């Protein structure tokens, strides 16, 4: 196989891993609360700006800055749940209400970040080395390997969390049937709060990884989240391995089309292919088919 082809696949996998990392928290919130959190990418951007400010403080070492960023992410998530989502849920909000709230948050976070840190592009201090490894004719950057590694580890942790912990079990129960879960004694409010906290802490990790590829600015997550969502839908929104697979496929498809067909058409082709797959299998590659009793 030509090194250029292998390089194309490797590049695609690295890009796909970024999509997967970004969308995982979004899927987690959706699976537990049925809220499509459009603002997940913007939360990642906001926490990356927080990390940027923390890293600029000489008294705070790098590891502490990263840790504090995760805490900040979790706090932002719990704040959103407490201040917005819980209130409207108590008043019987529809899916439309949630969409509007998330869109509002999306725009507000972008505006606030621009106001505080400015709208210009900022270089972010490297937390992953820029060095590369050469295998045959293929170059693999440490960044790409780290992103792939972090994504796989997080996915494994999520799997174990959902399968092996009481909180994970409660989240799955809430996803299956809210009323039954409540009757079984699941404390929904607490579980929702934890879900939002964990998911937004994951957004912080995604932001810290993505900023190595893009640059720090209020619009940095927009192209990522769009394709990440496409990947999640392609793979199957209710399956973590499916989401991972879908995102990796989007990354690889984009890369192959960009190199072998046209760089100008890579997004168009990738999305056309996704549409075709969804026509054949609307629930995504690994998503569960939903059947309703008549």
């Amino acid at each position, binding site marked *: 196989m030509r090194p250029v082809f292998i390089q194309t696949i490797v590049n695609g996998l690295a890009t796909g891993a970024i999509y997967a990392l970004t969308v995982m928290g979004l899927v987690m919130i959706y699976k537990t609360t049925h809220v499509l959190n459009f603002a997940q990418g913007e939360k990642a951007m906001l926490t990356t700006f927080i990390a940027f400010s923390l890293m600029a403080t000489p008294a705070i070492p790098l590891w502490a800055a990263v840790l504090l960023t995760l805490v900040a992410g979790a706090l932002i998530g719990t704040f959103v749940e407490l201040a917005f989502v819980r209130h409207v849920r108590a008043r019987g909000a529809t899916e439309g209400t949630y969409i509007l709230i998330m869109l509002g948050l999306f725009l507000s976070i972008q505006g606030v970040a621009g106001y505080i840190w400015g709208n210009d592009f900022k*270089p972010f201090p490297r937390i992953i080395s820029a060095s590369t490894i050469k295998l045959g004719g293929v170059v693999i950057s440490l960044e790409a390997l780290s992103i792939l590694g972090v994504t796989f580890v997080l996915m494994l942790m999520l799997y174990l969390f959902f399968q092996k912990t009481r909180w994970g079990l409660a989240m799955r129960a809430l996803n299956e049937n809210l009323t039954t879960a409540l009757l079984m004694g699941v404390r929904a409010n607490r579980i929702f709060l934890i879900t939002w906290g964990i998911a937004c802490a994951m957004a912080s990790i995604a932001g810290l990884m993505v900023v190595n590829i893009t640059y720090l600015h209020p619009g940095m997550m927009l192209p990522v989240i769009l394709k990440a969502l496409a990947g999640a839908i392609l793979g199957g929104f209710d399956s973590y391995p499916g989401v991972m697979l879908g995102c990796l496929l989007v990354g690889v498809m984009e890369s192959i089309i960009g190199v072998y067909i046209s760089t*100008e058409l890579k997004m168009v082709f990738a999305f056309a292919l996704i549409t075709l797959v969804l026509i054949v299998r609307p629930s995504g590659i690994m998503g569960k088919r939903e059947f309703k009793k008549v």
Partner: protein
Amino acid sequence: MRRTGMKTWTLVFCAAMLVLALSLPAAAKTRGVTKDTILVGSYQTLSGPAAIVAAVGRGADAYFKMVNERGGIHGRKIKFVIVDDQLQVARTVAAVKKLVEQEGVFGLAAGMNTNGTLAVVPYLQKMKVPSITGVSATECTFPPRKYIFTVRPVSFVEGLALAKYAVEHLKAKRIAIAYMDDGMGKDITRAAKQVMATYGLKPVAEAALGMQDVDYASQALVIKDSKPDLVLLACSFRQTPKLLVEAKKIGLLKQTKWLGATVSNTPITLRMAGKGTCEGVYLAGSMPAVDSPDPKCVEFRTYFHKYYPKENVYSILGMVGWASAQVFAEGLRRAGKDLTVEGFVKALESIKNWKGSLMYDQTYGPNRRDGDRYIRMCQVKNDKIVEIQGFFTLSDKEAEKYIKH
């Protein structure tokens, strides 16, 4: 009976005189101009993901504020109104209609949104609103339209100059083109290909740099595979560093020469790419360097910082806005105290080889609406952008030949 008739005629006469008296100043009045003010408007991207471009409007605003501080123009102060268009064409159209029909502006300055600017051209022509833009889209000023001007070299002219420099000075034989997937990138590419064809050359690769692409790994690979001796970067400071970083990863960076367009000629490109990455890259420029000791640049930085202390003074975007306002103000000065739209347009057309703005040279005429056709060449040395060749241009004849073609 006769007395009543007299009275009626007197009343009719007085009413006619009153109508005439009221209508006379109305006929002489120019929209947006009063005894002591001139209302100038602008549409700018003040919010949303592309709000970095707002520096253009701030640059123009800082210049008008400086002019006002120094007494205004012919005794009139400039009132500058900016409306947010969020870089969305529909909003630009709405913003311009608001500025013209509700605010009643005399003209527009420093419009920067390319697609939005193109969308409002017919309306501005119809309403006879002069607009001095900072856009470089070729179709904005080719063919020339009476009320639409630009202070920057248009992309097509820039593409001609870049390709000529690549072939004649850098002796490039295998040129790959990486272009921003928009009007500007495509214009530069089209012009470069025309020039290359006259030397019997064709691009060895063309790679589109999409705005929504997370990285440019595949583009770097396509370029590497074509084995170029020069890569022409028809893109901005948003794409150039990303592509260079990817090129560095796969060992392409040092294998070829890199020649970038004017919109990449900013320290932001170097900062984003990281230390040492841009070393040796050639960058075209249409203005002096952002940190130039040129008194005109010092004046820009002083006043930009004075009115916008939170903004980065080393801002190429701020400089574009400032330059647009400079040309606008020069037009107002030349138009004289009795300001009319037609007089203003004529005054702008009288500007020939004017070196009073941040741009190198401003020349307009009855059939010319692009003010500047000069490019200077710089190179990155020790992580600084250094000028290696002063401003050069294609002869008007040469440029016209390619443009017509």
